[in-house]
């Protein structure tokens, strides 16, 4: 069963929003992506409910720059609301492939990028220490306890 977004974020905080749109006006993603903005996300959460929001691919347009929260005259912690939305969307299977790839790689190697021969050679040329494989048993043990695999479908 998916949690309610209001268990993760205090709904009453959103009643402070008077839809001034300073957040959307500042949002870099809103500048380049059609039909997107934090104000709209927030309003849809209140009016349409979480299902309408977490199933929408557009939530992922956010660059996580936090400027919406920075400029909010009502001091709403918008980035916390967005993190809650992202987590619920991910559990619902609405997770961009590229994020899934990164998360999967961290789960398998402990790093979010692949360390191949070329990388090791480039580092050697600069006399930098090698990037040794990490203790993956330790990381897997932690992930088992936090329930990553139960929450999200990885490859």
């Amino acid at each position, binding site marked *: 069963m998916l949690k309610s977004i209001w268990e993760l974020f205090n709904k009453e905080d959103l009643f402070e929003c008077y839809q001034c749109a300073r957040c959307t006006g500042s949002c870099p993603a809103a500048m380049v992506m059609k039909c997107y903005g934090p104000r709209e996300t927030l309003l849809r959460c209140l009016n349409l409910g979480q299902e309408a929001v977490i199933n929408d691919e557009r939530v992922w347009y956010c660059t996580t720059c936090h*400027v919406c929260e*920075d400029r909010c005259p009502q001091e709403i912690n918008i980035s916390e609301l967005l993190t809650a939305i992202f987590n619920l969307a991910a559990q619902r299977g609405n997770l961009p492939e590229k994020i899934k790839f990164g998360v999967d790689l*961290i789960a398998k190697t402990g790093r979010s990028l692949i360390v191949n021969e070329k990388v090791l050679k480039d580092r050697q040329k600069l006399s930098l220490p090698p*990037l040794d494989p990490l203790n993956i048993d330790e990381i897997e043990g*932690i992930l088992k306890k936090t329930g990553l695999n139960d929450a999200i479908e990885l490859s």
Partner: protein
Amino acid sequence: MKYAFFLGCVIPVKYPGFEKATREVMKVLDIELVDLPFSCCPAPTNMKLAHYDTWLALAARNLCLAEEAGLSILAMCNGCINTLKEANLILKEDLQRRNQVNLALEGSGHCFNGTIEVKHLLDVLYKEIGLERIAEKVQHPLDGIRIGCHYGCHLYRPPRLMYPDELSEAASYVPVSMDQILTVLGAQPTQYSRKFLCCGSALGTNIDAQAANEITREKLQHMKKHRIEAVSVACPSCFSQFDRGQMMLERKHHDGFNLPTLYISQLLGLAFGLDRPNLGLGDHRISLQPILERVGRSS
């Protein structure tokens, strides 16, 4: 001074030159860097969005490694800073979350105790080492080059988590460290519109690279308007937007920006007169030649 050196993923894999320059610059400034088996921070632009509890527990493991070594963390990447600072603050203040995380860490033999600090390279330079000591090491001043500083959002936002001590009741907070450091190096940090707005990176890496580049283009246009000659960054993701992104934008728009982008350690290294191989200049797509010529380091 001695720090646990947090490499992150992007710098050691994609931009090892930044790591090289940082290690060399820190040698000049008598800072000892200790390598520990850190994992991905994990990134505020992937793991945190996918699964918060896993994000917090893996961040805690990294913090524990530094705690066990008795060292505070120095990180070179804004993503790493955003994750490690936030996790460190939350786990220091919220005992319920700390207990949950320590339960998850139990089998690994780690336990979060909240004994260390997390600092970005910029803050170590500006606050710990200080401008005076940096000035003493300058041998080749940067000739008044007009540099546009791009700090990157994850370094300081949200300020309530990144710089709680700098926040007064009413004001928000923006950093000044990079501008101050570059002034001491002999450059001319130059203001421009949209300075404190996003480079576009996460939209590009997660969803749509072309759209993200348009965000970067907006910033580049303002930089050009203010006759900026080079961009200085403190984050590998921002670097990628300004360097690789600029190359992709050029194919589409033919703006002719040609704005060289450098990581802050490389600019320090140039001013300190470090040898070319120690500056790690091999990962740049936009030519650095105009800048190197200006400071007499083109050969």
